[in-house]
């Protein structure tokens, strides 16, 4: 019951904020809606037993990436309205309709697929989970989700993890090169 209340509240807020993000006139307002949206999504993660990801969402997304957006918005939108010119060949509204159609289709698929059967897939429905949740032990020092995630990240996904670190390094260098006027 409580979960349902929270979920529906969050769902409405998230979708509403999402619409606000794409419809706000001021880019700064967009960013604000976006960060709140992300924070709410983080709450959703907590609901789904993903505390670590939730914290990371707040720390990296809300606290880092969106700040970056805010910076850029402040840097570039000072002189003139950004969306003055519209190309006649745009297909924006057709695209919106199309997106709506796709959404409807997906909803249809999802609803249809769950219509007659059990509402939730049972455990292991998609085959044996190779990185299952462990039972959280008792005691103050246990942080199940984070420990497990770290364990998986540094064993099964070690190489992707290292590749991701390389990607970040490359992105950092690329950003510096791009943003600096004279190297």
């Amino acid at each position, binding site marked *: 019951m409580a979960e349902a209340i929270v979920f529906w509240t969050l769902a409405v807020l998230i979708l509403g904020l999402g619409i606000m993000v794409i419809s706000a006139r*001021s880019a*700064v*307002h967009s960013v*604000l809606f976006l*960060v709140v949206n992300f*924070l709410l999504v983080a709450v959703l993660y907590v609901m789904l037993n993903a*505390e*670590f990801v939730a*914290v*990371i969402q*707040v*720390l990296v997304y*809300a*606290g*880092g990436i969106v*700040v970056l957006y*805010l*910076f850029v918005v*402040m840097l570039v939108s000072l002189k003139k309205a950004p969306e003055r010119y519209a190309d006649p060949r745009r297909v924006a509204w057709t695209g919106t309709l199309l997106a709506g159609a796709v959404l409807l289709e997906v909803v249809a698929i999802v609803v249809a697929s769950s219509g007659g059967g059990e509402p939730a897939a049972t455990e292991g429905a998609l085959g044996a989970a190779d990185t299952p949740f462990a039972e959280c032990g008792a005691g*103050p*020092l*246990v*942080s*199940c*989700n*984070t420990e497990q995630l770290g364990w998986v990240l540094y064993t099964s996904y070690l190489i992707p993890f290292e590749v991701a670190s390389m990607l970040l390094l490359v992105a950092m260098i690329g950003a510096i090169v791009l943003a600096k006027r004279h190297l």
Partner: protein
Amino acid sequence: MMDTVVVPLLKIAVLLNAVLVAVTFLVLMERKVIAWAQSRLGPMRVGPYGILQAIADPIKLILKEDITPARADKYVFTLAPIMSLVPALVVFSVVPFGPDPFYYVSDINVGLLFVISVTSIGVYGIILGGWASNSKYPLLASLRASAQLISYEIAVTMTLVSVILTTGTLSLVGIVEAQREGGLWFAFVQPVALMLVFIGGLAETNRAPFDLPEAETELTGGFHTEYSGMRFSLFFLAEYANMIVISAVVVIMFFGGWLAPFPNVPALSFLGLVPAWIWFIGKIFLFLYVFIWIRATLPRYRYDQLMGLGWKVLIPIAIGNLVVTGILKVAL
């Protein structure tokens, strides 16, 4: 219902009030300490030794006119101080004042990460406040402040990771417990980390010598130049609440939280007679005193020096500390 809703709400209410009262007295403490440091008397008029100044100031702020600049973004202008204060207060939800669940609102297993991430949200208040004022100086100040915060956040987080490496847990209670079991405060285990976190904390709270965003002489007061009245006081509260947060984090991480000094030494067991939460608050105020002391002593950095210190000194040292900690952790 009682345990899940009423008791936490009561705790939250008490905590918020305590923090806000503490902040008002912290302001008085700062004025007095700086005055003494400068061979002055400080506030003396309101109450004995000016002790009621802490009451008088909020009253004055609440009663002042709350001006909104004409071309300002009204909503954002109002939202900014709130976004600044709320994260600072939210952090207290995981700060343990004592060993029992009674002394803290919650103990989540990613406590330290929670503190860090919520602190990082605080930057929005500053940046939006500066932008929404639609004024030159506040905008510059807010950009400076946010750049400064993000930069030093990296160093502090990196340093805290090395402490986490030592304890093996992210829970704040767990970190204190680890120090009790180890019999040694982490200040002695990770002195470099202590220095880094403390310096980073000064920068994150925009305190001297890193108080460039509020540099009166350059920016006529910083990002809250256009603010007045209650909205200004919210920024004010946020800053001092952040100071308390940083002090609390440093105490928890490096000085044993609520633990008495040398808890494993039997000869000093009489120190355990003092309640744990008093130890904790006492240590926090000790660090707050250090904050004020530094403000009274050190001159302000230049902006490029500030960023250079952050990126070229603190972050490399933090990484080095992390590497050394990792090696020692594996080796020992």
